[in-house]
C-alpha cells in the first residue's frame, strides 16, 4: 500500500502499535519470538565468527580464505549451484512445457506428477543412495549392465545429476503456472500472423517465461548452495563444497569458530540470491497484461514430431526417477544389494528395533512442531497482510530469514546461540522443534498472505462492526477462512520435520535423535540396506500424512467455493 496513516498524539512504542490491545500483544509476542529464534542466533553466529576478546576483526575470515581447501570449496559450491540452477531449470521447463502444451494422456501426467512429487517429500539422501545403487562400484547399471570394474560414482557429475533430479521439481512447480498463465491464445495469435512454430516459441513463449526462468534458477541455485546431504554422500574428497566443509570443521575438528566463519562465507551468496530474487524477479510479471481470459484452444504451437520428442523426454525423466525409487525399495528388501539378492525383511527389523528411538523422537518432534508451525505461519501471515504497524516489512523479512538461509548456517547459529546460558537449549527437543518452526513456516506465511489478499478486508470489518473484538474476529472469521493456509503450512513443517537434516544435524543429541541422522550414520557405516529401509519408511509416512492433509484441503476448497492454493510440496 502506498499510503500510511499519520497518527498524531501518540509517541514511542505506543505510536508504532495498533490501538487494539490483542493485536498489539500479538505483534509483541511474534517480535519476541523472532528476536529469540532468528535474530539472536544469527547475531551470535556473527559475533562468534568475528569478535574475539571484545574486538571486531575480519582476521578469521581472511585466515579461512587463505586456506586453499576452503577457497576450492567456495568455488565448487558456486559452480555446482549455477550448474544445478541451469540444468534443473531446463528439466523443469521441459516437463512443465510438455504438461501444459503437449496434450498428454492422463496416465502420463499422473506419472510425471508422482515423479516430481517424490523428490520433494523424500529424505535428502534418497537420490544419492539410489545413485550409489545404480552407478556405484556394485551398481546395477555400471557393474551389472555395463560390466565396469570399480566404477567411480563420487564427484561433481554424480552430485550435479543427483541434485538436479532432486530439485528440478521446484522449477517445474514454479514454471507450470507461468506457462498456463501465458495461455495458448497468445501463441495461436502469433502463429496466425504467419510465424513458424519455432519462431513463436522463441519470440513469444520463451521471452514471457524469462521472469519465471530466472526465479527458478535462483531457487535452485539457493537450494544447491544449501544442500548438505547430497555432497556428503556423493561429492567425495575430490569435490569439497562449503556446507560439508563447515560440518566437518565442527563435527570432525570441534572448531565452532571455524564452522561459523565458513558458514558466513556461505551466507554471502545466499543473501545475494535472496535479494536478487526479491528485487527483480518477484516484481516482474508480464502475464497479466493480456486482458480478459478467454477460452483457450488446445494450442497448435507444437509440430507432431516436436510433441513426441517432448513427451518422450519427459516420460523418460519420470521413468528414471521411478526407477531410482524402485531400486531403493528393492535394496531395502534384499540382504546386501549388489552382493546377495536374497529377499529379507531384516533391514526393516533394524528400523523398528534399533531405529525405534529415532522414529519415536522424529515423530514426536514433527507432531509437536506441526501445529505450532502452522499457527505461527498463519499468525505472521495475518499480521504481515493485515496489520498496520511500523516494522511490518521488517517482520516479514525476519520471518523469512531462517528459510532463505542455508540450513548449515541456521544449524550452526542455533548451536552457538543455545549451547550456553542464558538460553541453554542444546540437547533438548525444543531446540530442534524451534529450528523447524522458524525455518519451515514461511510456506504457511506466504499461503496465508496470498489467501488474505483474496479475502476482502470488509469481512473482518463486518465482524468488528458487529461488536467482536479483534481476537474474536481472528478466531471466528479470519482463522476459519485461512484454514487451508494453516494446513498447507502445517503440512510443510511436517514434511520437513521428517526429512530435513542440514540444520538439525548440528542439534541432535543423545536424548533426541532423528531418522535422517540415522540414515546418515548408516550411510557412513556403509549399511546401505537399513538406510534404504529408513528412507522408504519416511517416504511412506510422509505420503500418508500429506495425502490426508491434501484430502482435507480438497474438502475445505469445496465448502468455501474455489480458493486456489499453491501446492503444499512447493515449500
Amino acid at each position, binding site marked *: 500500500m502506498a499510503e500510511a496513516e*499519520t*497518527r498524531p498524539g501518540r509517541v514511542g512504542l505506543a505510536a508504532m502499535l495498533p490501538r*487494539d490491545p490483542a493485536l498489539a500483544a500479538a505483534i509483541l509476542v511474534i517480535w519476541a519470538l523472532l528476536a529469540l529464534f532468528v535474530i539472536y542466533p544469527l547475531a551470535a553466529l556473527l559475533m562468534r565468527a568475528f569478535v574475539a576478546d571484545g574486538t571486531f576483526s575480519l582476521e578469521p575470515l581472511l585466515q579461512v580464505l587463505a586456506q586453499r581447501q576452503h577457497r576450492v570449496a567456495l568455488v565448487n559450491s558456486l559452480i555446482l549451484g549455477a550448474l544445478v540452477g541451469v540444468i534443473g531449470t531446463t528439466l523443469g521447463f521441459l516437463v512443465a512445457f510438455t504438461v501444459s502444451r503437449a496434450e498428454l494422456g492422463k496416465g502420463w501426467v499422473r506419472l510425471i506428477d508422482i515423479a516430481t512429487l517424490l523428490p520433494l517429500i523424500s529424505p535428502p539422501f534418497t537420490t544419492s543412495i539410489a545413485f550409489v545403487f545404480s552407478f556405484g562400484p556394485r551398481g546395477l547399471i555400471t557393474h551389472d549392465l555395463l560390466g565396469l570394474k570399480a566404477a567411480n560414482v563420487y564427484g561433481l557429475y554424480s552430485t550435479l545429476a543427483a541434485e538436479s533430479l532432486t530439485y528440478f521439481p521446484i522449477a517445474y512447480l514454479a514454471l507450470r503456472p507461468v506457462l498456463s498463465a501465458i495461455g495458448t491464445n497468445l501463441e495461436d495469435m502469433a502463429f496466425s500472423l504467419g510465424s513458424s512454430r519455432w519462431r513463436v516459441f522463441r519470440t513469444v513463449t520463451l521471452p514471457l517465461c524469462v521472469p519465471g526462468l530466472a526465479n527458478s534458477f535462483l531457487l535452485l541455485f539457493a537450494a544447491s548452495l544449501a544442500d548438505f546431504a547430497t555432497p556428503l554422500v556423493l561429492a567425495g574428497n575430490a569435490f569439497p563444497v562449503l556446507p560439508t566443509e563447515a560440518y566437518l570443521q565442527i563435527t570432525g575438528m570441534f572448531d565452532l569458530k571455524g564452522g561459523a566463519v565458513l558458514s558466513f562465507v556461505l551466507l554471502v551468496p545466499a543473501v545475494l540470491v535472496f535479494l536478487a530474487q526479491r528485487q527483480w524477479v518477484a516484481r516482474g510479471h508480464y502475464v497479466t497484461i493480456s486482458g480478459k481470459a478467454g477460452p483457450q484452444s488446445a494450442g497448435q504451437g507444437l509440430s507432431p514430431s516436436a510433441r513426441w520428442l517432448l513427451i518422450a523426454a519427459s516420460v523418460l525423466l519420470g521413468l528414471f526417477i521411478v526407477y531410482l525409487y524402485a531400486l531403493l525399495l528393492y535394496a531395502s528388501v534384499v540382504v546386501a544389494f549388489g552382493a546377495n539378492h536374497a529377499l529379507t525383511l531384516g533391514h526393516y527389523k533394524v528400523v523398528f528395533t534399533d531405529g525405534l528411538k529415532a522414529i519415536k523422537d522424529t515423530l514426536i518432534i514433527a507432531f509437536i512442531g506441526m501445529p505450532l508451525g502452522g499457527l505461527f505461519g498463519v499468525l505472521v501471515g495475518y499480521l504481515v497482510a493485515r496489520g498496520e504497524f511500523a516494522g511490518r516489512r521488517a517482520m516479514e523479512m525476519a520471518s523469512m530469514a531462517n528459510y532463505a538461509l542455508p540450513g548449515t548456517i541456521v544449524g550452526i547459529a542455533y548451536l552457538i546461540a543455545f549451547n550456553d546460558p542464558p538460553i541453554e537449549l542444546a540437547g533438548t527437543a525444543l531446540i530442534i522443534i524451534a529450528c523447524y518452526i522458524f525455518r519451515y513456516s514461511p510456506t504457511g506465511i506466504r499461503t496465508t498472505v496470498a489467501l488474505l489478499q483474496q479475502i476482502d478486508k470488509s469481512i473482518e*470489518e463486518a465482524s*468488528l462492526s*458487529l*461488536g467482536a473484538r479483534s481476537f474474536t474476529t481472528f478466531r471466528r472469521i479470519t482463522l476459519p477462512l485461512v484454514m487451508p493456509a494453516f494446513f498447507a503450512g502445517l503440512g510443510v513443517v511436517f514434511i520437513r520435520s521428517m526429512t530435513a537434516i542440514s540444520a538439525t544435524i548440528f542439534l541432535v543429541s543423545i536424548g533426541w535423535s532423528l531418522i535422517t541422522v540415522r540414515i546418515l550414520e548408516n550411510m557412513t557405516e556403509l549399511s546401505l540396506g537399513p538406510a534404504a529401509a529408513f528412507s522408504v519408511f519416511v517416504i511412506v509416512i510422509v505420503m500418508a500424512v500429506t495425502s490426508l492433509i491434501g484430502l482435507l484441503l480438497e474438502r475445505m476448497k469445496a465448502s468455501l467455493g474455489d480458493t486456489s492454493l499453491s501446492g503444499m510440496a512447493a515449500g
Partner: protein
Amino acid sequence: MDSVANPVGIRLTGMDVKFHHRVKGEVYAARDVNITVAPGELLTLLGPSGCGKTTSLRVIAGFQKPSAGTVHIGDRDVTNVLANDRDIGFVFQNYALFPHLNVFENVAYGLRVRSQPQAVLEASVGDILRMVGLAGYERQMPHQLSGGEQQRVALARAIVVKPRVLLFDEPLSNLDAKLRVSMRGEIQSLQKRLGITTVYVTHDQEEAMAISDRIVVMNQGRVVQVGTAGELYRSPASIFVAGFIGRTNLLPAVIRGAAGGRLTLDIVGTAHTLDGAQTDLGSGSKVQCVMRPETIGLTPESAPGTVPGIVRSRTYLGEKTEYTVEVSRQQLFVVQFGADAERFAPGAAIGVALPVSGVQVLSGDQS
C-alpha cells in the same frame, strides 16, 4: 422488531483524514468535515468517487481514525473508541458476508458476540429473517444466494443487534437497476419503522433524493452543501451542486440591474428579468444562471417573451421528450411533458421561453 426507544444523533466535528502519499506527499481524504445527523434521521453523503464520503462514513464506524477532529455518537465522544465498541450496524458495498457461515450463523454472529442465550438468539434471527423476506433460507451458504438475497442478509445481520446507528456504504451499487429501486424502498421503510439514526453513502443522486431526509453533498474531501433533496435541487449553492443534483443548464449572464426583488440580466443575447432572484452582485457582474430543463418552455414560433432557437435533436422517452435546442450559439437541454411534447422536429425554428422565477443565480467564478 420494535423501533428504537431513544434514537441518538451523530456529530462529526472538524474532521480531517490525511494520508502520506509516496509521490504527492500529504493528501487529504477529508478536510474540516462537520456533519450533524439528527436522531432518527436518514442522512445521505453524496458525491463523486474520491469526494471523502466513504472516508467520513468509515470514521463514524471507527474503521478509520481521523487525523484531527472528533466523532460523537449521542453524547459520547467515540473518537478513540474501537469499532467493536461503538454499537453500530454497517452494511458494506460488497455485503461482506462471512463465506464460511450459513445465513442463520451470519445473522446470529453479532448476537453470539453479545453472548445472547440460544433461545433469544433463535427468536431474534427468525424475526429479522422474516422481516427481510428470507425465512427458510437459514441453512443456505452465502455463495448459494443471489445478489439481492445477499444484500438482505447483510441488512438483517446489521440490524438484528439493534444498533444505535446504521451505516450504509453504497449498499445497492452491485445490484441491477430494477432491484436497486425496490431495495432502496425497502431500506427506507425499514429505517423509518425502526427509527434508527442512519448514514447512507452513495454516488447516485437519484438514490440519494429518493431515500434521504437530508443530503450532504461532498466534493474533494469537503462538505459543499447540506439540505433536503428539494432545497438542493431548487437552490444549489454552487455550480458543482447544480450539476451534480439533477440535470441542468448553466447559462452565462451579465447583471444589468436589480430593483424591488427583480433582477435584469443579459442572457443568450437578450435582456431577461427574473423574479425573486437573490444576489449580492452589482451591475456588470458575470454570473451563471441555473435553469432546470423542465422550466424552459418551447413554442412553435417566436412569440413575445421568447427568444428564437433551433431544434438540434429530439429524444422521445414516452412520458417525456428531451430536446437539445440551440439559442444564440448555446446548447440548451429542455424536457417537455404532455401529449404534444414531441411535436418539434429537429431543424425546426422555434421560440424558447426562459423561466422568469425559480432561477438560481451563481457568481461566475464559483465552482
